[in-house]
């Protein structure tokens, strides 16, 4: 069997395989009915960028159904919102500050290379925030991500603004750092293994953790993660399951309550 275009015959030669990112389970916190982002009026998120839809591991094919259902809700939510929304006042100073922030990499010279920082960030998250992680690794990752964040303030790029991938990467880096830091900090807090998150130092599923979501926020300097209780499963859904199935995932307390009424 030959794999084109690598031209490797896997019956004769070894083939290199490795894990790669398939899906991001976390994302923007939204109201489930309207897809409105919590805390940011006027922002709507649906699809992979929205968080919480698929719990700790998305099942195959469920992304497509998510997009269809929540894409529609987001559209309807946004249409409803604009009926009553007023234009958000934006100060000239804020516009100027945003423009300066984006322009800044052009005004520096001899600073950090955005591609190198990106590669280093990839290396850190791949090695330390991968599929199987430990508290010690995550701690190291959080420190290293903070270092990259510091250095990213000094990125300089060459060339002009037109189709300049090095320039795009300079501000994509901010968002990548945000995702990496949120993931690492949520993962270090969650002392159990569940779905796509395996803690080698806490290999068991723990029903108490099922009741908790991690919400990350950013103050411009670093990410803070807080725990937020998950709404209880409504009774009509609870009743659809064989109780012995639910016992694998829920605490004795939750089972005794029999779902939220």
């Amino acid at each position: 069997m030959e794999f084109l275009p690598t031209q490797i015959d896997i019956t004769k030669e070894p083939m290199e395989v490795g894990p790669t990112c398939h899906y991001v389970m976390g994302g923007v916190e939204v109201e489930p009915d309207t897809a409105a982002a919590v805390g940011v009026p006027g922002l709507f998120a649906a699809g992979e960028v929205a968080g919480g839809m698929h719990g700790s591991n998305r099942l195959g094919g469920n992304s497509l159904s998510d997009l269809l259902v929540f894409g529609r809700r987001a559209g309807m939510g946004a249409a409803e919102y604009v009926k009553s929304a007023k234009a958000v006042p934006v100060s000239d100073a804020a516009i100027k500050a945003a423009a300066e922030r984006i322009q800044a990499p052009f005004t520096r010279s001899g600073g950090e290379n955005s591609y190198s920082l990106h590669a280093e960030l990839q290396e850190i998250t791949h090695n330390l925030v991968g599929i199987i992680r430990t508290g010690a690794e995550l701690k190291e990752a959080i420190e290293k991500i903070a270092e990259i964040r510091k250095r990213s303030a000094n990125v300089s790029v060459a060339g002009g603004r037109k189709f300049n991938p090095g320039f795009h990467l300079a501000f994509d880096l901010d968002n990548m750092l945000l995702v990496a830091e949120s993931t690492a900090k949520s993962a270090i807090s969650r002392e159990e293994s569940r779905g796509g998150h395996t803690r080698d130092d806490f290999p068991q599923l723990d029903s108490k953790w099922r009741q908790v979501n991690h919400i990350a926020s950013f103050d411009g300097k670093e990410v803070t993660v807080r725990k937020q209780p998950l709404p209880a499963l409504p009774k009509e859904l609870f009743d659809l399951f064989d109780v012995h199935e639910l016992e694998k995932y829920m605490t004795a307390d939750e089972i005794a309550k029999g779902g939220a009424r």
Partner: protein
Amino acid sequence: MARKLKMRIWRGDADTGALQDVTVEANEGEVVLDVIHRVQATQMGDLAVRWNCKAGKCGSCSMEINGKPRLACMTQVASYGDEETITVTPLRAFPVIKDLVTDVSFNYKKAMEIPSYEPPANLKPGEARMQQVDVERSQEFRKCIECFLCQNTCHVVRDHEENKKSFAGPRFFIRIAELDMHPLDILKNRKQKAQEEHGLGMCNITKCCTEVCPEHIRITDNAIIPMKERVVDVKYDPLRWLGTKIRKREGIV
């Protein structure tokens, strides 16, 4: 086993441009897109190149490699000789935006000119049914990743800007053929329209489009030629012509 690879990369914009020589490290198993990315990361931070999947499925990284229209992510560095210089240039048939990136909006304009699938008005959501054989018939054309390599290669537009107005191009001939094969589509004159409005008649079946298609779609043999044959048949056979006006025929066989 890294080696030094000599490359010539076209850099410029809509107005001017030139090939630039670079030497870059190439590792075993790498594709041309990998080495372009290495050039970008280490020597030319602002080098424009379009890409997305690195798996031959998004159709973004189309360019010309040693003069041949190809996907950079599916072209092995090892397929060129150790001493050979790899030259990369933007697609020739479309206007350059910057470096290796072209403006392919010609293709989107052509796509808009083709009437979309039209089911019978009384067909309700969830009621559409298709036989497996009908699904399979157009399956080949549905593999298209819209890399537009065929569009870039076709001599009708490659060297004749003036033909772009009246010629939809091979990618859209397979689109028309696919819709024409759809058993529920009610538009009856897709082939005639291909001939009269989308420039099917300008194609002289050189098969260059088929040769460059990374999805190995037999564009000329399975879409263009059968459509041309049917158009000719219908033109000269009044009874069949009448047939097309009365009910949708079964499509190309």
